[in-house]
């Protein structure tokens, strides 16, 4: 409908027609159509596992085996490699950066196309000059001599964008969740840059789960669900609810019904005057049985560091931790597990999962002693039973228990991480950004899981950078700023404004 709606005289920049793709016999994309016009920002929307990444990887020349046709500038084409796609003017910024942290900004920017002087050696002054030129065109200030590992996420992303824009002939820029790692002002800057690129004639495919951003930034939304087109709409004609229903195929009640249970008066976890590296200072709070405590704050406020101190991943320098009123000595995550304290980390690939292991092996990582038979060997039956229990409890979508965890979507990976911590029968569960990088549907499911846990009597601490999520899920909200607690607010009295004020003050 959209194509008709636009002037027929405009040739689409890109037409992907009837694209199908399967992995090992499992069909991932079925007859998908995807069109981009010049100077247009298109949102590719869909839950994790809907096939967005696969479609974009076909476009970027990563996957070269598929059915269907791609037309670029009106001509049928088949990209044989990523270089091929780049040469035709397609740039992609992946969600995970591909930078060498030990090299300088300029070296990264020109990686693989270094500028040489007449002796054939790398011409650093020229590279530096050209790098500064590139960055000033993008409207950012980055010292091109800095090592990438010294930079924060936002400038790193700018380097990726600069790389994707390459020599300047890029006509289509694909951005996979570019705002996920960014904070407020950085997002604004990114948006300004996107608009700037658009006005220069570059088309952008914007992949994001943040619907307010989609509504604000894009011209058109194309939605995938389960590997098929599930809707296409001009952004100005839709709303958040409209987008959500396209994604999930129904009007989703995004605000899950409030849970029935309430926090009790029984204090499970008490943290007293906790201090420790790198910057946690004199933090005290309590969490009650059945309570969900939200932990808000800006990036770098020390929330993850606080969690790591509590579970013994870092050594505390002062303070005590009491469980059920008794002081406990937690010096290593082993002690945390023994005391039924679980920690779902913010970065599941780095800290949560063994990527080359199966769903089964990941689920039982925390309970090796409980899956043994009488001979002291690992019992396949016990392992399978535990795995099946949590797969069905959390409704994890897997092909089999033996499926490698890296082949699951983000939401399902997260469920396996949660499963391994439910397996220890936690009294206290700390969830660090539990819905980061997962789609709306899975997000609602995770919220439901958290509520159910609290109802079952678990004391829950949920760290989240998304204020609406904190306000929505938590019973009580703690705010951190530069390693200290700056607020402890019951939900009824909290609002985004109140929380933000505490987070920055």
């Amino acid at each position, binding site marked *: 409908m959209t194509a008709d709606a636009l002037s027929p005289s405009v040739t689409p920049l890109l037409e992907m027609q009837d694209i199908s793709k*399967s*992995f*090992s*016999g499992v069909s991932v994309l079925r007859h998908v159509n995807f069109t981009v016009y010049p100077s247009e920002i298109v949102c590719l929307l869909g839950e994790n596992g809907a096939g967005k990444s696969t479609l974009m990887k076909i476009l970027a020349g990563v*996957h*070269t*085996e598929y059915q269907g046709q791609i037309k670029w500038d009106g001509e049928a084409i088949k990209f044989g490699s990523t270089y091929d796609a780049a040469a035709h003017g397609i740039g992609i910024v992946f969600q995970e950066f591909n930078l060498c942290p030990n090299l300088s900004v300029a070296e990264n920017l020109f990686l693989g196309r270094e500028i040489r002087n007449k002796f054939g050696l790398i011409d650093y002054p020229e590279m530096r000059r050209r790098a500064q030129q590139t960055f000033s065109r993008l409207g950012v200030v980055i010292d091109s001599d800095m090592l990438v590992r010294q930079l924060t996420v936002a400038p790193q992303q700018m380097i990726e964008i600069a790389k994707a824009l390459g020599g300047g002939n890029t006509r289509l820029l694909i951005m996979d969740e570019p705002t996920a790692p960014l904070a407020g002002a950085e997002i604004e800057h990114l948006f300004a840059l996107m608009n700037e690129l658009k006005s220069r004639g570059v088309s952008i495919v914007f992949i994001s789960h943040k619907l307010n951003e989609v509504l604000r930034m894009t011209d058109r939304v194309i939605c995938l669900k389960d590997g098929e087109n599930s809707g296409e709409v001009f952004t100005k004609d839709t709303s958040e609810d409209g987008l959500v229903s396209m994604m999930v195929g129904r009007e989703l009640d995004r605000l899950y019904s409030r849970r029935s249970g309430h926090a009790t008066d029984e204090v499970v976890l008490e943290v007293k005057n906790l201090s420790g590296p790198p910057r946690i200072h004199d933090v005290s709070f309590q969490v009650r049985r059945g309570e969900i405590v939200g932990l808000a704050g800006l990036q770098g406020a020390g929330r993850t560091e606080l969690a790591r101190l509590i*579970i013994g*991943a870092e050594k505390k320098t002062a303070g005590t931790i009491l469980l059920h009123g008794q002081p406990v000595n937690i010096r*290593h*995550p*082993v002690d*945390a*597990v*023994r005391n039924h304290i679980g*920690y779902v*980390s913010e970065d599941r690939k*780095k*800290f*949560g*999962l*063994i*990527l*080359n*292991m*199966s769903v089964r*092996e990941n689920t039982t*990582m*925390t309970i*090796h*002693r409980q899956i*043994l038979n009488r001979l*002291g*060997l*690992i019992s396949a039956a016990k392992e399978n039973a535990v795995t099946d229990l949590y797969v069905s409890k959390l409704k994890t979508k897997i*092909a089999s228990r*033996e*499926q*490698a965890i*890296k*082949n699951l979507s983000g939401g399902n990976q997260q469920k396996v991480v949660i499963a*391994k911590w439910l397996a*220890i029968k936690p009294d206290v569960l700390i969830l660090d950004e539990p819905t980061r990088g997962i789609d709306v549907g899975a997000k609602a499911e995770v919220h439901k899981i958290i509520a159910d846990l609290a109802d079952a009597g678990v004391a829950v601490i949920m760290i989240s950078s998304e204020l609406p999520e904190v306000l929505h899920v938590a019973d009580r909200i703690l705010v951190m700023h530069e390693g200290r607690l700056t607020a402890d607010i019951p939900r009824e009295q909290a609002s985004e404004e109140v929380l933000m004020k505490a987070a920055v003050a």
Partner: protein
Amino acid sequence: MATADPSVPSPLLENARPGFHMRLLRSRESGVFIAFVILFGTLAILRNRTFMSTENLANLGSTISYFAILGIAVLFVIVTSGVDLSLGSAAGLCGYVGAMAIVATPNPIAGIFVGLAVGILTGVVIGAINGAIVAFVNVTSFIVTLGMLGIGRGAIYIIAKYYVAPHASPPRDSPIAVLGIPQTYVDVAQGRVLGIPVPVLVLVVVALLAHCVLTYTVFGRRLYAIGGNEEATKLSGIHVNWVKFFAYVVCSATCAITGMLYVGRYSQGSLVAGNGDELNAIAAAVIGGTSLMGGSGSVLGVILGACIMGIVANGLDLLGIPSEPKLAIIGAVIVVAAIVDVVRNRRRA
């Protein structure tokens, strides 16, 4: 299995670990096995009389067994993404000290057990030193075990210099081997049961034990987990340091078994036994599909890798190649095997 798109790794292959031996046989290790069969067939045709003789086949089986036991030993460390370069020195030192114990024991039957116990205990000590420095002091395994390679070999010479055999020659200046190993010990270590050389039988026992430990015990599971993602393993409530420590202990103790077999093979506690074995053992592991990045590798793969290393060495001997070019050819085989593996992986990934 039906793979519609060869460019995509099948989940089963991706997950290939010891529990999946049958599936593994169809993939990575099948190539190694086919290579072994081809080499075997070629030698059987080219040098039929010498190669297919009982004597040579027994010798081949023994050689493969020494390599394979050392390869299995180092597998425990490689799986955690470490490496043990000191394994040849460890085997040599354990063998030398074990030989001293054998000679010092009056009863030759008791000597077998005393020697084995002392040899393996020596291995435990070497492994504990390696493991403690790697796991608790956090020094890279490469450099720790490289140092231990020198220390171990040097220790043999130092001990040998001051070693005085009981009821034997007077003190002297130059280090010598431990001589006078009782014939009983040599007969056992070099003997055959139903025509099968004892080293092969020892390998079978070691392999079965190692396979069970890696596949069915918590220790084994944790070794793979550490190789896959050490930080996530630690956060799951696992004493990663202790697991790594014991990986090195198991490795050196297993090397001691080969060291003790060498005592039988050379009828002495040799100064040079095990010299350069780290090359053969690590090559066997890598040819057999063990990733030096950790997290994958299997006992069966190591044995197949050792078969390749053993048959190449044996074949070159039979073809009358002198030892210097032989070393170069073996080195080339390792590099070629690594290239083949990378190419195969690239095609799958």
